């Protein structure tokens, strides 16, 4: 039984966050190198723009925003699940090696399969997804113990190990490439939202549409799992099966978003944590909030990074890391 006051509070927070996201979207739509004044945004959105305005808004800025928002949401949800599963506030899809798995696959693919640019760019998300998935399976396999099941701490440690090894290998792979390829892969790894076209939205959206309700539906099981394996077994839960399903959901979400945005860490760490301090630890309460915060954070990071450091811009992933790492360290020092 959840207190009505708490539910009211959750509604209020969600409302504020939706407002913040909308405000950021409008603000971000008006910023950029090509001219499109703020006063024209609403009319163009309503279909009264000329060809130029339509092109800038619908083909360049809007898809990027949508992708950023969706990716942030997916990462936040993935982080929430991972933190619940590992009973550790420090879990994050980026830190435990999913990003570097995807990155390694992308670098390998990019260097050794010279394809046509057209088809190639749409193949990249698939490759990244496969890389992330394989890495996650390996991490799961190595942190699984026959006697005691899945050990949360070991999951994270093994993830860190994989992440270190793969990024070491990746650095070297990219150093052997020519200059333009190095620039592209570096941008990819830095988490520079690169898939900015409607097809990439389509690549990301189905995952969210399926996995988001699934995760929310399972939030009660996450609550129980967070109490400890013995309690979960005590209330009649098939712990290993549930853990595997939830882990698969988390990996699917993270892999899907990393595959279109590039390596972005720390969103999945910060968003759930902020949400938990706002509303408490029950998953059905904080997960929707975490999702919104994640989307908003990444949107904000991308908007700032794109516009502050002209003309190159700084990748969203770097902006997030610069904010996220100190936050992570702060968490680490608090027990």
């Amino acid at each position, binding site marked *: 039984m959840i207190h009505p006051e708490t539910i009211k509070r959750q509604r209020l927070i969600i409302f504020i966050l939706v407002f913040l996201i909308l405000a950021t979207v409008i603000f971000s739509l008006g910023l950029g190198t090509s001219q499109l004044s703020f006063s024209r945004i609403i009319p163009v959105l309503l279909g009264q723009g000329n060809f130029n305005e339509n092109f800038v808004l619908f083909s360049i800025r809007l898809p990027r925003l949508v992708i950023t928002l969706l990716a942030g949401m997916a990462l936040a949800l993935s982080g929430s699940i991972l933190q619940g599963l590992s009973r550790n506030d*420090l879990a994050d899809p*980026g*830190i435990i090696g999913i990003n570097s798995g995807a990155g390694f696959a992308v670098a390998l693919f990019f260097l050794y399969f010279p394809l046509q640019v057209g088809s190639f760019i749409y193949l990249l998300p698939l490759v990244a997804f496969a890389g992330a998935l394989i890495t996650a399976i390996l991490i799961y396999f*190595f942190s699984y113990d026959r006697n005691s099941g899945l*050990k949360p*701490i*070991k999951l*994270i*440690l*093994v993830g*860190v*190990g*994989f*992440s*270190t*090894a*793969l*990024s*070491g*290998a990746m*650095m*070297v*792979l*990219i*150093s*052997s490439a020519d*200059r333009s390829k*190095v*620039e592209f892969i*570096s*941008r990819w*790894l*830095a988490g*520079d939202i690169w898939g900015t076209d409607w097809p990439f939205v389509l690549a990301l959206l189905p995952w969210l549409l399926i996995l988001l309700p699934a995760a929310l539906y399972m939030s009660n099981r996450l609550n129980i799992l967070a109490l400890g394996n013995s309690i979960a077994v005590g209330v009649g839960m098939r712990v290993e099966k549930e853990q595997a399903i939830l882990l698969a959901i988390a990996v699917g979400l993270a892999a899907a978003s990393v595959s279109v945005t590039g390596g972005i*860490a*720390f969103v999945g760490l910060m968003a759930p944590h902020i949400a938990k301090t706002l509303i408490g630890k029950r998953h059905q309460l904080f997960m929707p909030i975490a999702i919104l915060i994640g989307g908003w954070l990444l949107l904000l990071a991308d908007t700032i990074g794109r516009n502050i*450091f002209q003309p*190159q811009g*700084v*990748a969203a*992933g*770097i902006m997030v*890391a*610069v904010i996220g*790492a*100190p936050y*992570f*360290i702060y968490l*680490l*020092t608090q*027990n």
Partner: protein
Amino acid sequence: MKFDLKKNKVNSLSFSFILLASLLILVASFFLAVVFGAAEISAAQVWQALTASGTGDDILIIQEIRLPRAVAAVVVGAALAVAGAIMQGMTRNPLADPGLFGLTAGANAALALAIALFPALNYFGNILASFIGAAVGAGLVFGISSLNKKGFSPFRIVLAGSAVSTFLYALAKGISLYFQISKNVSMWTAGGLVGISWTQLKLIIPFVLVGLAATFFLSRQLTILSLKEEIAVGLGQNIFRIKVFLFIIIIVLTGASVALVGNIVFLGLMIPHIVRAAVGRDYRFVLPLSALSGSAFMLLADLLARTINAPYETPVVAVVAMLGLPFFLIIVNKRRRDFA
């Protein structure tokens, strides 16, 4: 952990044998590394090149390409293995490694910054930059882990190292993307052993030698420190001063290796573990043996990297990372009790 030094696995005599054996392995690996390669070269020619008693293209290949490369492998292997051994002893953390604790990431970020801001900086300036960077990275990780009065569990230090590394790599990437110098930076940070020249070696080797020599003077203190901090205090050691010295040594050794070949992960983790399994926990034995086996390992890894997909080179950094991962997993598995 066992505290009894007398129960050490070896005495001085059998240690001398082990030392001699690993020296032989090192010499053999060195020889192999110089003989095998893309160009056909005979053992006799290698001898001629070493004794400078011959001329010709092959001799030149040996003197200007293979020898510097092999020497670099020896230097880096020894430096990283010893740095890892010191870190493991000092922090009493089985997972300590220059790569995992933020040192390489720090050196990386500093190199990127130096190349971006001072493009005309010479090689020596870049070495200094990577020293400073390694110090910053290590300082961050150790600083963070000392914020907590009770001290951090090994697990948390690894996480702190991972977060600091992610942060510093992001900085390095940001800098190199903004100034469009990704390729130049990656030539430093991922160069591996390709194209190392005598000029580079002449600058780096003194640092490593001084670092290694200093280590061997402090090995007794390190052994005591690795037991327990209270014991070291009880035995009248000035812990702070020793730790500062050791810290500086780690920085110099790691910074020099990063400047020379880039990010090599897991080497400093693996070698000391293997060595301790052979000779026990006395660092007077562990350190010299780590240096020798680190060098031999690096030579063989480079040889593997050059021959695995000949005539193309597989970067040695990737080979070491891939060999190191299973090892890391084994340690995590074995020592699970220590991490909670």
